[in-house]
């Protein structure tokens, strides 16, 4: 058997085939092989959330998963959400509410935010969900708990929550 493998997946709607060292994380495949550097490496150990991407609709830490494990998956990164001049509503809300400062955790925060609203819609509970048998709702407390896997050392949290609340409203 070999120490490297071929893997094919779609990134932001585009099919990609890569030959990777088995050790290559999805994060490093994105950044170093595909030059999609919008996804950030903050800790490389699942402790900060800067590397958050959306795989088949679910947010994951791309640093703690191997590229080779994503055969056939559909991956969305920050570059797939919107572009300068053509922002995703969540990106626009982050700009409007100044939901970032240095910008390094920002792509992860935004990918996470987009997925969080879907999780609430899908009735996935969180630690602060009062009634496990009722439908989950978009509240500031829910957003704060669900976004807690995305650290922001600049401390933009208060503004990020405002951005997400606004994006949740405009989305409906």
């Amino acid at each position, binding site marked *: 058997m070999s120490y490297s493998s071929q893997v094919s997946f779609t990134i932001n709607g585009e099919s990609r085939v890569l030959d990777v*060292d088995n*050790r*290559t994380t999805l994060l*490093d495949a994105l*950044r*170093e092989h595909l*030059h*999609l*550097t*919008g996804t*950030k*490496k*903050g*800790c*490389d*150990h699942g*402790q*900060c959330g800067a590397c958050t991407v959306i795989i088949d609709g679910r947010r994951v830490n791309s640093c703690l998963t191997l590229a080779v494990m994503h055969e056939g998956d559909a991956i969305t*990164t*920050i*570059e797939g*959400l*919107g*572009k*300068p*001049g053509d*922002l995703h509503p969540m*990106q*626009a809300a*982050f*700009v*409007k509410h*100044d939901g*970032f*400062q*240095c*910008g*390094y*955790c*920002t*792509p992860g925060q*935004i990918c996470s935010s987009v997925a969080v609203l879907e999780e609430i819609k899908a009735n996935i509970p969180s630690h*602060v969900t009062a009634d496990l048998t009722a439908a989950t709702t978009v509240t*500031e407390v829910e*957003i*704060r*708990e669900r*976004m*807690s896997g995305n*650290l*922001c*050392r*600049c*401390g*933009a*949290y*208060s*503004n*990020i*929550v405002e951005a997400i609340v606004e994006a949740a409203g405009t989305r409906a």
Partner: protein
Amino acid sequence: MQFDTPATTNPIDQLTIVGQSIPRIDGELKTTGKAIYAYEWDEENIAYGHPVGSAIAKGRITSMDVSAARNADGVLAVVTTLDVGKREKGKQNTANLFGGDEVQHYHQAIAVVVAETFEQARAAAALVKVDYAEEKGVFDLSEAMKTAVKPKDAGGAPPDTAVGDFDAAFETAPVSLEETYTTPDQSHSMMEPHASLATWDGDELTLWTSSQMIDWWRTDLATTLGIDKEKIHLKSPYIGGGFGGKLFLRADAVLAAFAAKAVKRPVKVALPRPFLVNNTTHRPATIQRIRIGAERDGTITAIAHESWSGDQPDGQLETAVMQTRLLYAGKNRMTAMRLAELHLPEGNAMRAPGEAPGLMALEIAIDEMAEKLGLDPVEFRILNDTQVDPEKPERPFSHRDLVGCLKRGAEQFGWSTRGKPGTRREGDWLIGTGVAAALRNNLLVPSAARVRLDQDGVVTVETDMTDIGTGSYTIIAQTAAEMMGLPMDRVKVRLGDSRFPVSAGSGGQFGANCSTSGVYAACVKLREAVIQTLGFNASEVVFENGTVRSGTRSVPLAGVAGPDGLSAEDTIEWAELSDSHQQSTFGAHFVEVGVDIATGESRVRRMLAVCASGRILNPITARSQVIGAMTMGVGLALSEELAVDTRRGFFVNHDLASYEVPVHADIPHQEVIFMDETDPISSPMKAKGIGELGLCGVSAAIANAIHNATGVRLRHYPMTLDKLLGGLPALS
């Protein structure tokens, strides 16, 4: 431009663009992942460097066996600290970054392994075998403080000051307090790890890096590499946070430079996260003794603040008493700082060095004193306000509105409803509120900029200023737009490049005021050049709406410059105004906490900061600086502590899972009020710093709120539940 007399009316006062809430001009790039950080620059044929860190805290390397690493798959080179030998140290560094056989602290860089891929470099780095002759070190501040000494210097100030007769006044004061407070070692923990990409062209080095201070890095890198500074081109246009951790040259830059030289290819090196805490710098722990004496009416008659901290040999103090020299009146006073030798990693500046830990202690002491006096802590602070430097009464503050901040904050926060300690409860939550004053000095550093007007009427600003999340891009564009009478979209800003004029850089909350003043100075010259080109009478010229107007003549700015453009460059330099006047920024923090009556978990429920720091250049970015600092203050109050292993001499919790910075769920909605003020003695912008003020006092306000909630007085940070449990009521 020499700034030697207080500012009078100037074009900035129009406030058509400066002072307006304009969203960040780099916002679209940052939210779409298109802002490029150090590790992300694309070069042909990049190789990957991975550092190796010392496994011991102190001693010497007796031998290194790199054969296994060198023979590993994909490895191009292994460069060891023995290979490069002892280097001349950069002026700003205390411990060596790389070179020589001496080990000064845990995880000090001792090798870099270069390979074709990141995975190969990381794997091979683990194969480097090292033999050490370990030496005994000193790692426990509480022990080392006994042999601490008075250093020559405390960041440009004397380590000790005294006015009047403190001992006598304290002895005879009818009400007095004497307590000891401690703050732990703290980590910057910025989200982007230190990273550099080095590429050599002959004897010239280009380095993409993550630096708050371009010129300091360039100078110290030249020293460390032993090359001419002019041979280094340093670029750092986007920085993923710094907080002081990227002020000074770090090992990633040195390793990348040596590695790239060795393999004759571009090499990039990022410090792995578990490496960051012990390899780089941190804010040193402090032990602080505070004594306050007052009359029964609350007038402070005696105040003393002493602080002990430790650092590597030839290191620096954490100047935790500085604010006590300025914050409150009191005829008899003394401050003193002592430095112990420790062999932990290098201690150095972290956001609001000195004032942040100093106020964590002082503002608890003030709260305790108010309680002893039976005074409201807001009233007690107002009672002891001073409009002059209390150590040098002939020296007034340039502008000081601490009282205004306290009054405005108390009103906004609903302070008057505050109850006695331990009396407010909602379910299982004990609720309390706390207040603290904030003071952070306004530092002034020369700052240069170059501005160029092109044929199309677009102005480009170039300065080596950095934007570490502070909003430099935006406020610099606002400054140039205001000065040249242009809309924002006619201004381009280029930052973080050593080929641009040397700026103040980002540190000490001086960046915004100083760098925009530098841009102001350059724009004054550009305006003169435009006026001269047009042959206008300088005294009547107005720059507005993209035109230059003089009397009835009005000319569009586009077209004034020929194909070569019109350029101007200048430096703002600061004269004696800071000697004659004490320049500081002020604030008041109000906090509400809930403490779980069973578990002692403290959670912040409400936060308000009121800031008096001169003109606010952009309320959006300034507010973000303040809420970010408030967030950091929550961490410093409740969870952040680098745990020292005093046997082995290192910080044990060296990752982001075990060093707990605040998460979303820890932070409520935060409110910020800026006092409407200007400070013409500060700069032509009439602005002052804001980025560190927001951190000053926050943690003490939280501590005071915990006391109000529970009746338990904590004096040792962080205020984790284990320290509270014993004082909470027994559960039935």
